[in-house]
């Protein structure tokens, strides 16, 4: 019982970080109908940026979020502007999937060239600090990571709900055609929206780098989990992806505690297939293109 509750606590804390990555990905899908296969690679890029800032300049990994987030925002805007915008508009679905995969490969290649392929991780002085609350272990890094993710998600929520830009984003998600007719600049919304989506990868990356060992190839593990989460949550639904991330975080953590860590990823995929069998639109999916 103790092990189970410990696993659930761990799962919620990890799930929060995945929620942040997945919310960016699902936001991008909502706005542009693009499945961003590069999200995992951008998280790894964020982790390496944090690693460099920490080892070279001694900047605290949590604080470096202030630097990496705007950087990855710019990367996202550049990718959208240079690679996705020129795509022939009548086949965006399949082509964008491949283009973002190419971006992922490119990022992986550049990172392997710059850092090599050995596993690294970010080890600040407080990496091993943990508290014991009612007999349950909560590590400092995981807790702060969870809080940081919540703060970023809150910021994203405020941007979407309280600003003029957010309003045009939501309009575009609901009905791109009407939004354009009402004077929403679709290209601008897409570029900034893509940037926001990739910016979430920055914060998630810093945290990911502290919680896991990583190398440039780690993005395959990440993207498989992220895709499962966004499909479960219903593509395009941010709330859905947050809940799905927490559910999957807990599920995989429980599986790895009770069975073996090897099968924790596997549980992701099995849950996904079961859900698709019973409810092809995902748990909370609004009717999106592509799903039945």
């Amino acid at each position: 019982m103790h092990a189970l509750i410990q696993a659930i606590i761990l799962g919620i804390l990890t799930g929060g970080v995945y929620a942040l990555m997945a919310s960016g990905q699902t936001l991008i899908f909502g706005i542009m109908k693009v499945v961003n296969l590069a999200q995992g690679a951008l998280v790894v890029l964020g982790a390496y940026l944090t690693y460099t800032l920490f080892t070279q300049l001694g900047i605290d990994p949590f604080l470096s979020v202030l630097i990496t987030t705007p950087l990855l925002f710019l990367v996202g805007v550049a990718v959208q502007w240079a690679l996705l915008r020129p795509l022939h508009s009548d086949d965006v679905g399949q082509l964008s999937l491949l283009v973002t995969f190419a971006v992922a490969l490119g990022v992986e290649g550049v990172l392997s060239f710059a850092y090599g392929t050995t596993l690294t991780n970010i080890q600040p002085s407080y990496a091993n600090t943990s508290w014991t609350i009612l007999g349950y272990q909560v590590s400092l890094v995981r807790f702060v990571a969870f809080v940081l993710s919540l703060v970023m998600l809150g910021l994203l929520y405020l941007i979407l709900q309280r600003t003029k830009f957010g309003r045009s984003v939501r309009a575009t998600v609901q009905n791109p055609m009407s939004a354009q007719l009402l004077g929403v600049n679709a290209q601008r919304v897409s570029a900034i929206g893509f940037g926001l989506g990739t910016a979430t990868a920055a914060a998630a990356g810093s945290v990911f780098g502290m919680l896991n060992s990583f190398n440039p190839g780690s993005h395959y593990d990440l993207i498989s989990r992220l895709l499962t989460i966004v499909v479960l949550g219903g593509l395009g639904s941010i709330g859905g992806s947050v809940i799905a991330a927490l559910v999957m975080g807990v599920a995989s953590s429980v599986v790895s505690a009770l069975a073996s860590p090897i099968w924790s990823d596997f549980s992701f995929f099995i849950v996904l297939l079961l859900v698709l069998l019973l409810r092809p639109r995902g748990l909370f999916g609004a009717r999106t293109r592509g799903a039945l």
Partner: protein
Amino acid sequence: MRAGITRVGLLRAGVFFALLIAIPLVGAPGWILNTLIFTIMYAGLASSWNLVGGYAGYPSLGHVAFFGIGAYAIGILFSKDVHGGYVPFLVLPLIGLAVGLLAVPIGWVSMRTRADVFAIVTITILFIAQTLAFNLKSVTGGAQGSSVAPPPFGVDTFDWPFYFAMVILLAIAMGISFYFRNSKIGLSLATVRADEDKAHGVGVRVTAVKLISFGVSAGLVAMAGGIWAYYVGFIYPQFAVDPLITIGMVLMTFLGGRATLWGPVLGAFILIPAQEYFAQAFGASQLYLVAYAAVFLVIMLFLPRGILPTITQRLRSRRAGLAADAASTVQAPAAGTTARNERITR
């Protein structure tokens, strides 16, 4: 485009395969044969992928899972002894059949979704296969890999059996591709690609043709995986279930032209030599990934329809003059793509 067997078509296929058969016989050096084996393998893989991704318009990103299953099947059956060397080739059709049947329920689940979601679901199939390959250690040997017993072929002609096996497989894949184009199955798949709901509405047996194309495609890919495993001798999970193999099939089909007979083959014969060149030029360094990604992006941005459809359209509009220019965009195979895209963007 659905013209049946024409003299030009027969001639083209005859010359192509005669050339392929002649190359080892005239004594081509080993490195050429080696590159060609992989090129022909990818031509076969891309042609098989095209059955699902091109004709049916379902962009599967998980096909390498079946490649891996085929590879491990050969690895498990022939880890100790290859019974004279040719038995594994004779067992291949059975492996193809078994994997094809196995793929039907997988296709049934995943083809309940469409477009992007289908792509994502098939990616998870890839990762499931990878996880299993790494962790079912008693079957696959895990990360240590497993091996196939070395075949007793002579040094000079060692590559020949594998080479001809790949050529035969490519011929089968292209034959099936040709049959699909000229039969009711192909026609049904074209309606699925154009508008699945309407096709279903007018009585096309949508699920049946989708599953046939998925099963056949998976079976062919598994056979290629089997030959590959026998040829390279060692099977490691990261190479047998490599996402780059899936991406290779997709990219080659896109480059040559989706839903065409020769497009995937053309794509493979351009990309694999290019890839070999990059690997040579940049050595083991990962810059090769960057170069590959760059080629990838250039194709997607400048040739989104693929080489063959673009050329056919150019030729046609030149022949028909400017007046018919607009009309030519409504002809196959571009017709398939355009019609399907309407569904996607809707």
